[in-house]
């Protein structure tokens, strides 16, 4: 399993109801179903991934995240997941709102553009970073909204979203003391556990 998914699964309660936005081949939902008795639905638009979900017995709905999620009721899921998809959305901020409307809690993972490698690449070469981790040229990348850990923290603050937990990991998806103290500099993948701050 992709190691960011390994961390995510610790935050998901057994027998809870999970919506996975951009569920890919359904590996996480399949794992959660068998290991934690989780019921879940994935949303996906890639036909190949949808086919993999069906073969696994994972419920999947062909639906574009850039279009409305209004077909999902308020509070209808325990957790709404968005793994490595935030940066590819038209309006990531709107989707975060939708996640926390539909789910009691949200989990978001994204590549941290504030990582030292990206910074060095941009600073020394003066060009958009390309790495194993971010392999696309700027003109063809599906990732149209890169952000840093600090940017995301600011968004959560502005939206009055409660950050229940935040973890960053490197490309091997391991944490280190450096990442703990300077997450925006050393973290390559950011993983957030979010909840609404209920206003009085």
């Amino acid at each position, binding site marked *: 399993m992709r190691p960011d998914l390994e961390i995510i699964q610790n935050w998901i309660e057994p027998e809870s109801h999970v919506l996975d936005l951009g569920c890919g081949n359904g590996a996480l939902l399949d794992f959660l179903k068998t290991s934690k008795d989780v*019921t879940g*639905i994935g949303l996906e638009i890639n*036909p190949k991934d*949808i*086919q993999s*979900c*069906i*073969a696994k*017995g994972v*419920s*999947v*709905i*062909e*639906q574009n995240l850039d279009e409305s999620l209004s*077909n*999902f*009721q308020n509070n*209808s899921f325990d957790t709404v997941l968005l793994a490595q998809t935030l940066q590819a959305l038209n309006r990531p901020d709107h989707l975060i709102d939708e996640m926390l409307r539909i789910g009691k809690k949200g989990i978001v993972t994204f590549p941290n553009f504030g990582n030292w490698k990206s910074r060095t690449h941009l600073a020394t070469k003066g060009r958009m970073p390309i790495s194993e981790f971010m392999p696309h040229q700027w003109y063809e990348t599906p990732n149209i909204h890169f952000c840093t850990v600090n940017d995301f923290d600011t968004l959560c603050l502005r939206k009055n979203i409660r950050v229940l937990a935040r973890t960053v990991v490197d490309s091997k998806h391991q944490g280190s003391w450096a990442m703990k103290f300077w997450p925006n500099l050393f973290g390559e993948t950011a993983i957030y556990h979010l909840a609404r701050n209920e206003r009085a």
Partner: protein
Amino acid sequence: MNSIPSNSAGIIEPQNFHFDKPLNLTSGRILPCFDLIVETYGELNAAKSNAILICHALSGDHHAAGYHSLEDKKAGWWDACIGPGKAIDTNLFYIVSLNNLGGCGGSTGPTSINPETGSHYGPNFPIVTVKDWVTSQVMLMEKLKIIKWAAVVGGSLGGMQVLQWSISFPKRLHSAICIAGAPKLSAQNIAFNEVARQSISSDPEFFGGHYLERNTSPKKGLTLARMVGHITYLSDSAMRSKFGKTVSKFEKKGDNFGRDLRSEELSFGFDADFQVESYLHYQGERFSENFDANTYLLMTKALDYFDPSIDYDSDLSQAFSESNCKFLLISFSTDWRFPPERSREIVNDLLKANKEVTYLEIEADQGHDAFLLPVPRYIEALRSYLNRIHTEVIKNAA
């Protein structure tokens, strides 16, 4: 035909089932007894857990797969999907396909003899609804000693029966597969049906539906009805490619919009000049020779009346509240009869009711008809889904 293709369900012999128990219909009328004609493909396992019910659409019947004899030119209407190794695999499943009540394929319908009068039911055959069909299908299920279907599967009007199953008999099916369906007809759908009905009833050979007594049939009207229906089954792009094979001399190059001519010259008269016209005539006429006009009227009414939400304050999600099966819905991009939005309406109500649902929107050029055709992504999805279902029902039974 010299031999049967190896992936065919083979030579099939339809069976007749007689029901003595009166059937109380939605209309309030009672059918004292009736017959259903049925085909089955594959073998029922010992646990009786591998049975699939196939529900047919407007002009379908019990002959879904295989051949009746070596002389047959065409296989059953869903032969693309049913057979050994096909998406609905006869090596895994026992597949039951019937002709619905009111049909003209051999089940009791307008062309049957009314035991009370000794003559054809004709226009006096009671209007049957999707709900009535499902009730009769449960009676058939009991005759076959099947407790629970592994899947109930259907496209178009067949998909509506699938939805009705999940609502009326939630414990009797493991999965519901509704392809190119709709939660109910729209005004546009009803309008097309009404044109079809008017075509039939205004044919001078219709005689108020009593044409059989006069040894005639409203072929012209039925032809017209089928022609207008057929247009709604195809997409604009499918028609362009079907009738745009040759580039006529009136077009400079490339796409001719499907305007293939029947002959070299325009007639400057009112006869058919274009291929599409003669195609529709041919399809309509062929249909009118094999289909009963009263059945056509009845089937279109069953479509118009279908609305499972009506008993639930028009809230379809409420209708699904007791449903106990998993759902697969599939729509096709160029289907304008029941476009993807209509399937999505069903999906959204299933989500609202917190049901297990999978939904696919297949890119396909063929319009509504795509559900009958071997569209690769559709076939693969159906196959994978049913393979999972097979594993589940075998495990559940063990």
